[in-house]
């Protein structure tokens, strides 16, 4: 039997005229959209500080002889509870880490705005709240104000959490300060968060446990900064878009080339296998408890030792070098040959070939 389908919706819209998931993937498409729309007119930096124009992890305003660092982040994740964490832990750690990436490792307080879908289970909300509380204790911070909204069924997917963080610091570390000669350090294995989530979504099981790395790492960063005062030139947390996007942003904004030694990059064996099978590149996969740190060459070993002495940095490694060869370029030395490290376009999807 043949079934004739009703005509589809007419009125096609050009693919540049609507926002697509590609614009939310943390790569170039997202940065362009923000610069062209949301940030237009706001791009003038505040007097002596880091504003929207820098497109950094947060803003920094001069307050007397110190800096007030402000950052905000909205969190959506599917599934809400995942191996190694949940949206509550993600919402706290994400904002604490964004502050830390600016050099502000002692958060003064967080705001928390929650939007819930009608029908969301109260027990799940309580579980998320307990997780937020635990993560706050871990990071040495507390929620100081908040807001709650409920929307109708189907108007959003379960729960959205926005957190904003503020902190004071004596020295701001931008993501644009890399200098030729600097070494690049990653604070641990890459790709754990994204692969753990993807495995859950696609019901792929592993013969070894794999959990998201979601965690507040402000104490780890504090240790690194204290080990070599003034020697850390740039930091970025490789969340959406993975290490590749973060390195591109750092290289472009700093006007330098970064060469990464792939064999030196720590990758969990399960992540390596899964990425291989799913046709994904661990450099494109999101992390939620890692940082990329640029440091002056003479201090690299000292910073590395400080990171490794901390439980969240035991697998830290020096993975690359900065040069002035080709501004904005990121080169990957695979140990077999060299190639450019491409930024991911759109959400990483399992592929067949």
């Amino acid at each position, binding site marked *: 039997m*043949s*079934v*004739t*389908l*009703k*005509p*589809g*919706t007419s009125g*096609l*819209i050009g*693919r540049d005229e*609507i*926002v*697509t*998931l*590609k614009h939310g993937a943390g790569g170039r*498409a997202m940065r362009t959209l923000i610069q062209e729309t949301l940030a237009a007119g706001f791009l003038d930096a505040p007097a002596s500080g880091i504003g929207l124009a820098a497109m950094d992890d947060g803003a920094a305003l001069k307050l007397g002889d110190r800096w007030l660092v402000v950052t905000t982040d909205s969190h959506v994740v599917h599934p809400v509870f995942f191996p190694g964490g949940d949206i509550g832990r993600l919402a706290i750690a994400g904002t604490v880490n964004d502050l830390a990436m600016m050099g502000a490792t002692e958060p003064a307080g967080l705001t928390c705005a929650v939007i819930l879908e009608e029908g969301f289970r109260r027990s799940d909300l309580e579980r998320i709240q307990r997780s937020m509380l635990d993560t706050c204790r871990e990071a040495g911070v507390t929620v100081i104000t908040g807001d709650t909204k409920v929307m109708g069924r189907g108007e959003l997917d379960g729960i959205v959490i926005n957190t904003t963080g503020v902190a004071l610091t004596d020295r701001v570390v931008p993501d644009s300060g890399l200098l030729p000669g600097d070494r690049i350090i990653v604070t641990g294995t890459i790709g754990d968060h994204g692969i753990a989530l993807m495995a859950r979504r*696609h*019901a*792929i*099981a*592993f*013969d*070894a446990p794999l959990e998201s790395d979601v965690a507040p790492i402000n104490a780890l960063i504090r240790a690194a900064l204290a080990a070599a005062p003034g020697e850390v030139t740039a930091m970025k947390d490789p969340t959406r878009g993975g290490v590749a996007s973060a390195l591109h942003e750092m290289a472009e904004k700093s006007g330098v080339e970064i060469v990464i030694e792939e064999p030196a990059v720590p990758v969990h*064996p*399960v992540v*390596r*296998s*899964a990425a*291989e*099978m*799913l*046709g994904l*590149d661990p450099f494109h996969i999101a992390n939620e408890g890692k940082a990329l740190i640029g440091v002056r060459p003479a201090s690299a070993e000292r910073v590395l030792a400080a990171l490794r002495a901390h439980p969240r940095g035991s697998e830290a490694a020096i993975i690359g070098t900065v040069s002035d060869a080709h501004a904005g370029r990121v*080169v*990957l*030395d*695979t*140990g*077999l*040959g*060299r*190639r*450019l490290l*491409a930024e991911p*376009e*759109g959400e990483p*999807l*399992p*592929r*067949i*070939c």
Partner: protein
Amino acid sequence: MLETLRTTEAAGQLRFRDPAKAKELAQALDKVTADVGRAPVSVMHVCGSHEQSIAKFGLRSILPKTLNVIMGPGCPVCVTDVPEVDEAVVLAQDGLRIATYGDMLKVPGTALSLADAQSHGAHIDVVYSAAEAVELARDTTDEVVFFASGFETTAVATAAVVLAEPPANFSVLSAHKYIPPVMEIVAEMPGTKVEGFLAAGHAATITGSAIFDRFVDRHHIPVVVAGFEPLDILAGLVKLVELVRDGTPRVENMYPRCVTPLGNRNAQQQLWRVFRTVGGMWRGIAHVPNGNLRLRDEFARVDTRKKFRIDVKRLWNNAPSTLTQLCMCGDIMAGIASPSHCSLFGKECTPDNPVGACMVSSEGTCRIWHQYGGHPDL
């Protein structure tokens, strides 16, 4: 639970990624290429996975400058033709759930890709296997269409689910392709410069390496079956250029740990029980006789094209595309033209809005040129 990954597999692969051995093979390749005594020597691989590996491990930076390794009709996703994508887009717009592999989402149709259709509200599920698409259908009363792409290797997996009594709300929209015929097309293309083929190891595990004997007899072009690890590819290239140098065209199997001369007979039986070959367009290349795999009539129940009347014409009314006619992917894949010869390259045809096969895939020649400005000296 569909799949249990064994992490020990990763360790096994490392044997085929040994930098010291790679260096030896690269030196051997330099020597044998120089021994041919003319430049450039052009060979072609016919598999996206080979290009993927070459790009991923940075192998192009260690290949001899006088060896031109051309990316052939490559990944099955890239060569999925516009009308095939249109069929899936129309069904998605009409409210059917489309289950497909992730890299099919970005392949452009006449007016929209599946990713575009999804942005407009269509329900697209990214699946990792044919079995996952069936699971999806079992979990819902919605009509689920598995938009299936891939060469014979992947087609075997589709055949297996078709033979395993899938639920009534499941059907297959086959865009599966069959590799051997397209090698004939490339070999017969006027002005083709291809002197040897690196054949895809995974497809050959099914078909066997002997399937290429007839091709070599007809065209006197050597074929080397190679695997996908860096050492597999380098060793395959060394063997292939040796055959070019010696003027002794024959089939060599450099992937014997997986490929036998006759292949996997069971898988072949499943494949041909479910599918038959029909001629069809491969995007940007040519009409390939017997190049497409379609479901046999006895499986009409699970054949989307038999189950639904798919009106793709309404998309053509919206935005008739003449761009694909200007696309030069066919010539680029035959080694006759470079991306810079194409009037669309970097203008109408970009990674965000690809027209042809070579721009669709992240490992396509045009895509790599666009992103990296040719092959930069690294």
